[in-house]
């Protein structure tokens, strides 16, 4: 299970190697347009689309679990829905058992829908409150006209037992069940047509810890018993570690690292993965006041992703320009300042900065203080360039300051978009590895 470059299927099961993976995703893209009108297009005032999923590729072999992890806004939920073609993608292909799901006609798609299913996060919202459990679990069978009604009812009872519920509860309504039980009903429904692939979108996030454990165990057992393949989407890294064979880390619509779970967790390559893992609070006494390096800033808008590597605006390992020899900390500080200055409201920021202090403190000190930049940079050329920029600000030549900063401190990370590269244990999209 790897990315698009090397199509080797690494299978964990002892089956004679399946010739192709169950699911192959190639350069999947989903962009959301804001519905610009004709006038907007004429005037050129169209808003840039939101690139929710921006070129994602991976394979999942039969019987395995791929975990897809990321924070909010990374596009993982959209990925799940686009895979299942519940949302029409903008580009790419999704091959299920070799056939492209995205270009199928409706009839074939309906048949394929028997083999795939999607389980959602919210156990309260994924079941129609007006239907009994029987009707809910039966629905897939009804839609595809499988067997006689009597046979379908029998199957419903079987399924409920399979997920750990009592078959006597068939005629109850969802509101009579707890969150965990509702999720079991959801799972029973997903299994009714004997699917091969199940995409799970945050299936346990809304559940309490003790119930979460029950459901995770159930999912794991079912996978073994029925030979299911999972695409498990979640934001909780601990949960994903437990259930996944392979894991893909997403950021702003792209996969930044992908590989075997063990490898990624014990030896993460991408700076974002490292930061994520570091930030997770561990339930143990050693965690008390543990020094965590929080990543600065917030996730940029998917409408306007940063150039080059989308993580470069926050990356603690940002590559400094070749010509300078700077400490990583001071470089990151200068980069943050530069980032801020290249935004639209730079002038306003500077104004308020000046207004702040009553005494005529030098702008230089104010800036260095605000962005944690040392009094003098360790590299003389860098210091010269920075001073020039600050000087321009001092005399209110904003445009010049900006262009100085822009030209003098270009990181390769903002110029080039990294490709997924093999780092030994996993694949990581970072220039540090190329």
């Amino acid at each position, binding site marked *: 299970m790897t990315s698009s470059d090397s199509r080797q299927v690494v299978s964990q099961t002892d089956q004679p190697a399946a010739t192709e993976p169950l699911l192959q995703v190639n350069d999947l893209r989903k962009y959301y347009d804001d519905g610009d009108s004709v006038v907007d297009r004429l005037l050129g005032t169209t808003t840039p689309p939101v690139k929710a999923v921006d070129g994602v590729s991976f394979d999942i072999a039969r019987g395995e679990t791929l975990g897809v992890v990321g924070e909010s806004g990374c596009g993982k939920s959209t990925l799940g*829905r686009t895979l*299942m073609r*519940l949302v029409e993608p903008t580009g790419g292909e999704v091959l299920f058992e070799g056939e492209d799901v995205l270009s199928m006609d409706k009839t074939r*798609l*309906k*048949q394929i*829908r*028997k083999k*795939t*299913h*999607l389980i*959602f*996060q*919210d156990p309260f*919202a*994924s*079941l*129609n*409150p*007006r*239907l009994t459990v029987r009707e*809910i679990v039966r*629905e*897939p069978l009804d*839609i*595809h006209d499988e067997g006689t009604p009597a046979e379908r009812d029998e199957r419903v009872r079987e399924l409920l037992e399979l997920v750990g519920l009592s078959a006597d509860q068939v005629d109850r*309504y969802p*509101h009579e069940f707890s969150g965990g039980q509702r999720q079991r009903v*959801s799972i029973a*429904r997903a299994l009714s*047509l004997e699917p091969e692939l199940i995409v799970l979108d945050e299936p346990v996030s809304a559940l309490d810890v003790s119930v979460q454990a029950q459901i995770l165990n159930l999912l794991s057992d079912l996978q073994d018993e029925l030979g299911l393949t999972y695409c498990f989407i979640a934001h909780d890294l601990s949960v994903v570690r437990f259930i996944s064979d392979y894991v893909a880390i997403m950021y702003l619509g792209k996969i930044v690292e992908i590989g075997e779970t063990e490898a990624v967790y014990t030896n993460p390559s991408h700076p974002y993965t490292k930061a994520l893992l570091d930030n997770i609070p561990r339930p143990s006494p050693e965690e008390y006041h543990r020094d965590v390096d929080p990543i600065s800033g917030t996730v940029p808008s998917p409408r306007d992703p940063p150039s080059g590597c989308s993580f470069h605006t926050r990356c603690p390992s940002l590559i400094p320009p070749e010509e300078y020899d700077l400490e990583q900390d001071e470089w990151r500080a200068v980069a943050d300042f530069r980032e801020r200055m290249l935004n639209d409201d730079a002038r306003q920021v500077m104004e308020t900065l000046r207004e702040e202090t009553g005494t005529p403190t030098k702008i230089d000190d104010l800036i260095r203080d605000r962005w944690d930049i040392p009094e003098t940079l360790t590299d003389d050329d860098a210091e010269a360039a920075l001073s020039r920029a600050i000087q321009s600000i001092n005399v209110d030549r904003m445009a010049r300051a900006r262009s100085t900063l822009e030209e003098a401190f270009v990181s390769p990370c903002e110029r080039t978009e990294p490709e997924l590269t093999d780092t030994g244990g996993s694949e990581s999209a970072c220039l540090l590895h190329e």
Partner: protein
Amino acid sequence: MISSRLKQNFKNEFARSPSAKVGLALVALTLAVVIFAPVLATRDPTGQNIMQGQIPPSLAHPLGTDNLGRDVFSRVLYGARVSVLVGIFAVSISLCIGVTLGIVSGFFGGRVDDLIMRATDTMMTIPGLIIAIAIFGILGPQQVRIPDPFVALGITPEMPAEFVLPGTVIFALGVTGWTRFARIARGEALTLREEEYVLSSRAMGAGSAHMMRKHILPNSLTPIMVLGTIRIANAILSESSLAFLGFSGATISWGLDIAFGRQYLASAWWVPVFPGVAIVLTIIGINLLGDLARDAIDPNVSEEDRV
């Protein structure tokens, strides 16, 4: 399909509210009158007797007689049938048209939605009354004659064998009153189609018809039902107004009686007043019940506090 929680809410609200009890009493009374009119009436409502004309309320004629000697009390009772049944049938027609259009519109969105909503908007700008009158111009006052079961069974042989419903009025009210239902149904469909269980359904391979029928429609019924109750009251008022203006087709109707009796307001006030009172009481009753329904369904009534 009504959840037990809803039933419980109904019971609670009912117990708690005196106006709900009044509403129920009035509506129950009206329905009783509608069904049992032949039995409750003292005289044949169409029976004319000029000699007995314009008698004030008395023992023999509890609500007096009109200028043609017809018993007002019996006419009021029979009039209930026309008003209520017109209300129910007209609203049923509106509901069917409106809900279908609304759900399709909300569910599909895009062009379909635009088209249907334009039609709805257009419909709403034209006063219903004008359209109703236009329909009358085309169809004329068509009558729907329904044999009276009590007479047919021989229980009350002296009463009229048939009662007459104003067919054109029902039709006119039905095809002009659907817009509100469409709006509400569309709103519900817009919200509901984003629900995860609908998405789940689609993931299973369900077609649009299945999703609308099985998931959208049942879950949108509650506000539609509440609207329906209120619209019946409206329809009753509309029927009375149309009858008053001369657009009817029925032989007995509260509106008709008010129209005919208007001129006698000074001399025989009981002729127009009692049908008017009947209308008011019925409308109030329906509205109070509508309030009960709304309070019971109101999501602001929180169930338990999460602790």
